[in-house]
């Protein structure tokens, strides 16, 4: 029975007894109720009993039973509290020792905790879907793509077509099979300021399959998988931001524009639902969801693969069975491609990439914590020597061994808790710094936080390690030979071999070597990466990427439309020579013209911005967008000998702005404006293009770009210049044949770049204004330093290098401190010996050499233990390295030498001190 006064019974010292008393009360109470005495009377009785029990309990407080276990509070008050007070008093007397130990521990815990908080948020927390373990993604496998370097990356993770989806759906092994595909960007028309929306096409079962709830409205219906529909779902964030979070949004009609598409792209849509907050899938955060059925009919017809499959397995389905079934079903599906399919658990799909790197860093942080703890253990052992006398006195006065150990454990626990608390504080700060340098695309990195789980981790790590590492010192102390120590008096007892401490420092040096090797491998990787020639100079270049949201034939405010309007009127009047055919040619021409005109106007304005040295544009940029990959046939070669080349569309000053060197010939100029009747387009080719296809010089050479795979429709190209090779997306890219066409040939620039001498970012507002002044339909989607984009491509490597260097550096520092402490103590122990030696004629340098030799032995031992460990650990990093292999001898030689030098520095001071030993003082002692 729950009673508000039950606590009174708990005043009894034994909680078991209190329970028995409450049981008695309850039993008696129920007897009273059963015997139909008055309920009120029973209540009053119960309360009075409790009050009396409280009074009695307080009265016999000072009379505990010896047999019954003492309450926790008593243990704390009578045993732990004095121990705690004692520990704090000791620390006050030896602040340097306490501070070093606690700070070392805090440092180790902070590193481990900070990385753990990231590992926890990114890898350990369950994915936000319903039962994520039964979710899988199914990739199309296209073996023939493997041979082509451009498609090789996706050969076994390709999209699939409608027939594949149809083939997978009926399988009883799958609970449900949904499809989705990124649908690019769009705009909501009629807003004051055009803003881009990320769009996602999904099947009707996609959201229910994942278990994503809706805030408002309904999911797409199954019908909408197959027939065109104007329904859309909007994300919670879009709802809040653009529709003020009003519930009446359901049923509202909006006009969606499609970014950069053909005419008539105004699509009226009806909002049918609002997603729950924070929806994210495979790194995409769509603003608008449309039914995949929008173009289902077309897709069925063309069998083109654009869908991605996510499926939920039935509870009884084993993953291997499902993988086999998926592969078989896809192979048998009513389509040529893909050949077969590959099934990947969604957890692996989403977290597989960062997992290796993060676990590795976590391992590194763990090692650092280990070094920190070893260091603290060394400190404690050293402290134990100092305390031998005190412990011996206590033992002589009747302190039992258990009592001594308890005192020490309390002290260590207090140390661990203090260290962990400080560590959490440091970790809070470190996490912010780590996230700032974390590579993009780490899923859920925004949810990283120092929460209860993380704090618990810190405390468990701190307590666990310190208790483990505190046991040896505690036992050493507890085993103090009382009589001998007391007989020694207050003096230190002779030369001790300090075996335990030497072992610890050897371990520290070995661990530090492992961490330093990792730091070296990752550091060399980033150095090699960043010293790769890019082929252009990103510094001082600002890139504004744009999307044209207007309709190209629509009411553009640009000039190029006038002749078209005229022609249209003539056509309508039936007076246009050539009729419709002429009109089509003119539309084509005007499309090109408007694009070029727009580009010209933007460039004019950009060049006029103060601070801009050179302005240029292109349709694809290194590290910003993929160039077209096109087939070319070199003149004089057979028509079926097609070569792959990359095609960039650039403005005249692109090479200047990028500082891509022109190796021969010339760049584009106004003379490259297409003339009517001229069939040849001037091009600038890359050095690799020349090397491969025109080994005797490319300028003047001719080749064809096979348009649409049809040799008859080829576009003829004439080489006017050769430019240096550039990297495309990664600094590790190999050289590929590439060529540049002038924007005059019809490709409007979508990236605008300006070169300046100062910080390019200060130009952003002026650039935005310049672009907006030309036409509001040209929307800037991103502005960035080109150097930032290049840097971003090596963020993973930079992240690993930075963290591993910090860990390695900290470990080396800790090892050096540990060695310093040990050597200092050893030297202090031997100062009588040194005094005698000097008195007998040894030179101070000889004594110093003795100390250094002592240290060298320990360092050598540490390296001997550490090298195989470092070698083994290095092999794990293999796949994350570039330009350095985990078994190259120079890595280990260099790290070992570095570590040895730092360690020797740590022994210089004790050695100097020892060499100055005063023989008279030493002998007098």
């Amino acid at each position, binding site marked *: 029975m729950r009673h508000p006064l039950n606590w009174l019974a708990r005043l009894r010292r034994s909680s078991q007894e209190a329970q028995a*008393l409450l049981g008695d009360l309850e*039993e008696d109470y*129920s007897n009273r109720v059963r015997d139909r005495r008055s309920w009120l009377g029973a209540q009053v009785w119960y309360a009075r009993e409790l009050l009396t029990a409280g009074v009695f*309990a307080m009265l*016999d407080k000072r009379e505990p039973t*010896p047999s019954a276990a003492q309450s926790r509070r008593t243990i704390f008050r009578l045993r732990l509290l004095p121990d705690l007070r004692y520990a704090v008093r000791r620390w006050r007397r030896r602040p340097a020792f306490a501070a070093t130990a606690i700070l070392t521990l805090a440092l180790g815990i902070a590193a481990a905790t900070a990385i753990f908080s990231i590992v926890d948020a990114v890898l350990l927390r369950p994915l936000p879907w319903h039962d994520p373990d039964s979710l899988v993604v199914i990739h199309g496998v296209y073996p023939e793509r493997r041979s082509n370097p451009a498609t090789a990356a996706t050969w076994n993770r390709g999209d699939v077509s409608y027939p594949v989806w149809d083939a997978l759906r009926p399988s009883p092994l799958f609970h449900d099979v949904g499809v989705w595909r990124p649908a690019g960007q769009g705009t909501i028309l009629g807003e004051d300021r055009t803003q881009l929306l990320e769009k996602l096409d999904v099947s009707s079962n996609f959201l229910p399959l994942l278990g994503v709830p809706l805030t408002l409205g309904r999911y797409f219906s199954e019908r909408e998988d197959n027939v065109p529909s104007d329904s859309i779902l909007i994300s919670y964030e879009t709802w809040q931001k653009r529709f003020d979070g009003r519930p009446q949004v359901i049923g509202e009609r909006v006009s969606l524009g499609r970014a950069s598409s053909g005419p008539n792209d105004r699509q009226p849509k009806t909002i049918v639902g609002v997603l729950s907050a924070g929806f994210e899938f495979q790194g995409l955060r769509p603003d608008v969801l449309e039914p995949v059925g929008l173009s289902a009919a077309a897709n069925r017809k063309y069998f083109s693969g654009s869908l991605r499959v996510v499926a939920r397995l039935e509870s009884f389905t084993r993953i291997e069975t499902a993988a086999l079934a998926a592969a078989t079903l896809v192979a048998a599906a009513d389509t040529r491609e893909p050949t077969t399919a590959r099934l990947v658990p969604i957890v692996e799909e989403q977290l597989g990439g960062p997992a290796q790197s993060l676990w590795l860093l976590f391992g590194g942080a763990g090692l650092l914590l280990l070094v920190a703890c070893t260091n603290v253990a060394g400190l404690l052992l050293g402290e134990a020597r100092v305390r031998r006398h005190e412990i011996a006195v206590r033992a002589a006065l009747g302190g039992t061994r258990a009592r001594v150990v308890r005192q020490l454990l309390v002290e260590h626990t207090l140390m661990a808790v203090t260290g962990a608390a400080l560590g959490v504080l440091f970790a809070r700060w470190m996490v912010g710094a780590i996230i700032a340098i974390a590579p993009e695309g780490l899923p859920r990195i925004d949810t990283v936080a120092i929460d209860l789980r993380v704090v618990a981790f810190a405390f468990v790590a701190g307590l666990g390690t310190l208790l483990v590492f505190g046991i040896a010192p505690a036992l050493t102390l507890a085993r103090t030979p009382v009589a001998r120590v007391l007989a020694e008096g207050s003096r230190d007892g002779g030369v001790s071999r300090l075996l335990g401490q030497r072992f610890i420092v050897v371990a520290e040096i070995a661990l530090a070597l492992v961490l330093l090797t990792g730091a070296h491998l990752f550091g060399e990787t980033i150095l090699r990466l960043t010293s790769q020639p890019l082929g252009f100079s990103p510094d001082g270049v600002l890139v504004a990427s744009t999307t044209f949201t207007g309709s190209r034939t629509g009411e553009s405010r640009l000039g190029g439309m006038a002749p078209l309007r005229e022609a249209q009127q003539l056509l309508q009047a039936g007076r246009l020579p050539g009729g419709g055919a002429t009109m089509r040619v003119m539309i084509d021409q005007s499309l090109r013209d408007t694009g070029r005109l727009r580009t010209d106007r933007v460039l004019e304005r950009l060049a006029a911005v103060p601070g801009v040295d050179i302005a240029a544009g292109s349709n694809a940029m290194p590290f910003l967008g993929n160039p077209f990959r096109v087939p070319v046939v070199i003149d004089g070669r057979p028509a079926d000998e097609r070569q792959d080349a990359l095609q960039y569309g650039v403005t005249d000053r692109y090479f200047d702005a990028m500082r891509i060197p022109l190796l021969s010939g010339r760049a584009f100029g106004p003379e490259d404006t297409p003339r009517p009747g001229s069939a040849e387009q001037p091009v600038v080719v890359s050095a690799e293009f020349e090397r491969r296809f025109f080994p005797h010089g490319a300028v003047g050479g001719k080749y064809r770009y096979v348009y649409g795979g049809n040799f008859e429709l080829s576009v003829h190209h004439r080489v006017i210049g050769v430019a240096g090779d550039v990297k495309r997306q990664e600094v590790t890219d190999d050289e590929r044949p590439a060529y540049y066409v002038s924007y005059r040939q019809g490709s409007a620039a979508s990236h605008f770049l300006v070169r300046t001498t100062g910080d390019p970012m200060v130009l952003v507002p002026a650039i935005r204004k310049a672009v907006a002044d030309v036409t509001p339909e040209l929307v800037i989607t991103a502005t960035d330093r080109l150097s930032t984009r290049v840097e971003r491509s090596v963020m993973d490597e930079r992240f690993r290098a930075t963290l591993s260097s910090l860990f390695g550096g900290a470990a080396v520092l800790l090892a050096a401190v540990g060695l310093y402490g040990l050597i200092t103590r050893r030297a202090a122990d031997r100062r009588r010996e040194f005094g005698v030696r000097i008195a007998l004629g040894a030179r101070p340098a000889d004594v110093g050499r003795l100390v250094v030799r002592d240290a060298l032995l320990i360092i050598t031992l540490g390296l001997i233990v550490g090298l195989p460990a470092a070698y083994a650990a290095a092999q794990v990093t293999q796949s994350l390295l570039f330009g350095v292999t985990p078994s190259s001898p120079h890595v280990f030689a260099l790290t070992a030498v570095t570590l040895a030098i730092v360690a020797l520095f740590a022994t210089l001071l004790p050695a100097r001190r020892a060499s100055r030993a005063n023989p008279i003082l030493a002998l007098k002692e």
Partner: protein
Amino acid sequence: VQYIDAVADYLGEFEQLILLALARLGEDAYGVTIRETLIERTGRQSSFGAIYSTLRRLEHKGLVESAWGEPEAVRGGRAKKLVTLTARGKTALRESHAAVMRMSEGVSGLKR
């Protein structure tokens, strides 16, 4: 924590009554039954708090010992504290009873 084992031989009146109740109840002595016996035999409404404190004192003196019973539903899932007399308890009870008898011998007006 020091406990000074004093005046173990002296038995208070309530202590004596409880020891007698224990002797009477045998195996089934715990809070509720002890209390019922006291009410039944003496008509005295004693509180559980008093009983527990007295038992604790007796346990201290080594006159009774206790064990924990099984939890029961009627007790709200709580265990009983089962109490029995120790050999020393029986001796003490016998002695103090004898002392009372000796003291009351020949005193007039005690017997009805």
